[in-house]
């Protein structure tokens, strides 16, 4: 047993701090949960390039694909620190770094790996991905997708509608789940993953604004879109297993990023409480405020341990079954509590527009307040995640 960070991780932490100080503009307002990604794409991609030049963007990938063979512990620390400093541009459209790359390394062809991985790792616009999973009738019941890919010579012809597609308006490539066998005995057995060039004729992207007016996700229509058969990922009709794996990758990185972002907010709240008087006394002297912030700190520490425990299991070559879901539930719950507790501490200022000069803590609390309900739904609702924990860890019978 050893819970120390290694020398590499400690050095990396320090390097990222210096990077943040040197590379973020003086008037930089860090990312908040509500944004998910930056509104200013040019700035975001400029940061991606800088991260790429440091060899950080895809650090845990092999060198030949643009990575630097970093351990999953380094990757975890990197994700924590990126989120702590609010450095934009780390995900290449969310999907590229977090699951497209790792999935291609598991099941892609060598040709696919050589084509797409270095592009993602470069931090250039052509390496930005979106993921088309959800459909109007396939949310939590995801095996219900209707988008079809029908073989036609050396191509597939794709028709259908996707929804809640993050970053589709910026992505060059799409990681698409489509039905390739309508007669499969079970719904989830007829699904395949295809790589689609978003510039293909027949792809239409329409923005969907979230309830705060931000453009984060989209609906995407595929109208007779031709996709070369060589863009099939892995085996035909095995897509369900790849996308379950991709979701596990996505949920894995959620705990480190939530940890980093919430740690920063907690530190800022503690500082704010130490500088702000209410009713003639510093907030930091109020036993209630102290207890609330202490409780957040405790659960933040638990999340950190669970993030590293999952990284440790994967690093042993084991395939985690429920840990990613456990960590997702913990992450979403923590973000929500940071938003709630933060708002209690900010008091009446918690209603100020996060972009306004009146906003405290760069609007981070409002960002969390506005953002957490969305974060808690993406990549699996709490209900779905808890069912996974109950069934895969505790062996309870399937409930749906």
């Amino acid at each position, binding site marked *: *047993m*050893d*819970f*120390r*960070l*290694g020398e590499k991780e400690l050095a990396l932490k320090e390097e990222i701090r210096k990077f943040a100080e040197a590379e973020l503009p003086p008037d930089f307002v860090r990312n908040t949960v509500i944004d998910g990604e930056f509104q200013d794409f040019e700035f975001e991609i400029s940061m991606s390039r800088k991260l790429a030049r440091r060899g950080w963007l895809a650090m845990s990938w092999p060198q030949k694909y643009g990575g630097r063979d970093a351990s999953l*512990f380094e990757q975890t620390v990197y994700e924590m620190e990126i989120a702590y400093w609010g450095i934009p541009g780390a995900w290449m459209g969310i999907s590229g770094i977090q699951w497209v790359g790792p999935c291609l390394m598991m099941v892609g062809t060598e040709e696919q790996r050589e084509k797409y991985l270095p592009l993602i790792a470069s931090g250039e616009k052509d390496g930005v991905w979106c993921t088309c999973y959800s459909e109007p009738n396939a949310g939590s019941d995801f095996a219900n997708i209707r988008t079809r890919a029908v073989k036609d010579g050396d191509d597939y012809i794709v028709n259908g509608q996707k929804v809640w597609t993050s970053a589709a308006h910026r992505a060059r490539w799409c990681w698409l789940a489509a039905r390739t066998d309508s007669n499969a005995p079970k719904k989830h057995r007829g699904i395949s993953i295809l790589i689609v060039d978003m510039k293909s004729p027949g792809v239409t992207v329409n923005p969907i604004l979230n309830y705060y007016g931000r453009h984060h996700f989209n609906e995407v229509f595929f109208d007779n879109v031709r996709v070369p058969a060589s863009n099939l990922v892995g085996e035909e009709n095995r897509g369900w297993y790849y996308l379950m794996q991709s979701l596990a990758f996505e949920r894995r990185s959620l705990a480190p990023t939530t940890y980093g972002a919430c740690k920063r907010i*907690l*530190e800022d709240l*503690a*500082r704010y*409480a*130490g500088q702000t008087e209410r009713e003639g006394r510093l907030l*930091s002297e109020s036993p209630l*405020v*102290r*207890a609330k*912030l*202490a*409780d957040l*700190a*405790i*659960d933040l*520490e*638990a999340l950190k*341990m*669970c993030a*590293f*425990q999952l*990284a*440790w*299991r994967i690093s042993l070559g084991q395939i985690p079954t429920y840990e990613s879901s*456990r960590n997702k*539930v*913990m992450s979403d719950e923590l973000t929500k509590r940071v938003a709630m507790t933060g708002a209690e501490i900010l008091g009446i200022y918690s209603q100020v527009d996060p972009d306004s000069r009146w906003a405290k803590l760069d609007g981070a609390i409002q960002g969390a307040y506005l953002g957490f309900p969305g974060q808690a739904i993406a990549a699996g609702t709490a*209900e779905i*995640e*808890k*069912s996974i*924990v*109950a*069934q895969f*860890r*505790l*062996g*309870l*019978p*399937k*409930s*749906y």
Partner: protein
Amino acid sequence: MDFSFTEGQDMLRVSARDFLAKECPKAKVREMARDDRGYDPQLWDRMTELGWMGLVFPEEYGGMAGSFMDLVILMEEMGRNILPGPFFSTVALCALPLLEYGNSDQKTKFLPQIAKGEAIWTLALAESSGTCQASEVRLRAAPAGTDYVLKGHKLFVTDAHVADYVLAVGRTGGGESPEDGVTLFVVGARAPNVKMVAIPTIGGDRQFRVSFGEVTVPEDNILGKMGKGWDIVDFVLQRAAVLKCAEMSGACQAVLDMTSSYAKERIQFDRPIGSFQAIQHKLADMLIDAEAVQYLLYQAAWGINVGSPSRWQISAAKAKANEAYQRICIEGIAAHGAIGYTMDHDIGLYYRRVKAAQFAAGDTDWHREVIADGLGL
């Protein structure tokens, strides 16, 4: 980072779990709650034979030279099974400070007795407020020649009725801070003028008010330095918090396991209730709580194990365990339905022990304050 235990530690866990399941079934736990002594001396002897009493003592004192982490593993299994008796009082509260702060005479005299299972010890710290603050230490220890005379009361002293020795936290002086002038004395539990009155508790454990009515203690019985006893109390509280947390962690896992098994067996509406999401999600929440406790516990224990304890990590673990153990019991009983509310079912044994565990070695608010200080508040 490495979350794995050594092979020896895995073996210790399995053998402790098997031993306790066989030698200390729940019928024994119930019997001991009614027993005058509150523990089974024969079982105590068998635990001694396994080397558990002196697990962390060096061999020269009859110990097994085990690590603090070994002790954590053992106590997790004791908590899982609810082992009644004075192991925590003797080993966690007294043997550890004796080993760290005792002079060579004291160690040579007392530690082998403990390792051989011949002496039971307990710590007398809390007074009327029941907290573990230095300002609460009022037990007067007045010098009389080379002796000291102790006069006052201690409350919630565990297992005092079977103890051979009481480690009493007394006040020998004042100073700028309440931590100054605190001194620890080794007092024979059957010395004249040491009186005990039972404080009945809902947990079925044994706690007492111990009154010292002018009890004379020789200077040689001071543990550590005169007036510097709070350092020792601080040392004890940190380790005791982690070891109590280990017990609670084991208990959390036991309640989770029994609830999960019940959810698979209990049929309602022609289906196991574990197939209903309302029950599944409750169990998932319980699991998440239990694992959070475990990893916070192992982190805090590891710090002690490698000689760099973190007050912050210890408090995070104990505060979390205090809340999670209670929540897991309450949710577990709810999932069981009425059977969980009966004397016959084991889950109530765990629930009834929550309060004693929560207030041992720092309650939740006390630990939250440590965390708040660490945040710079």
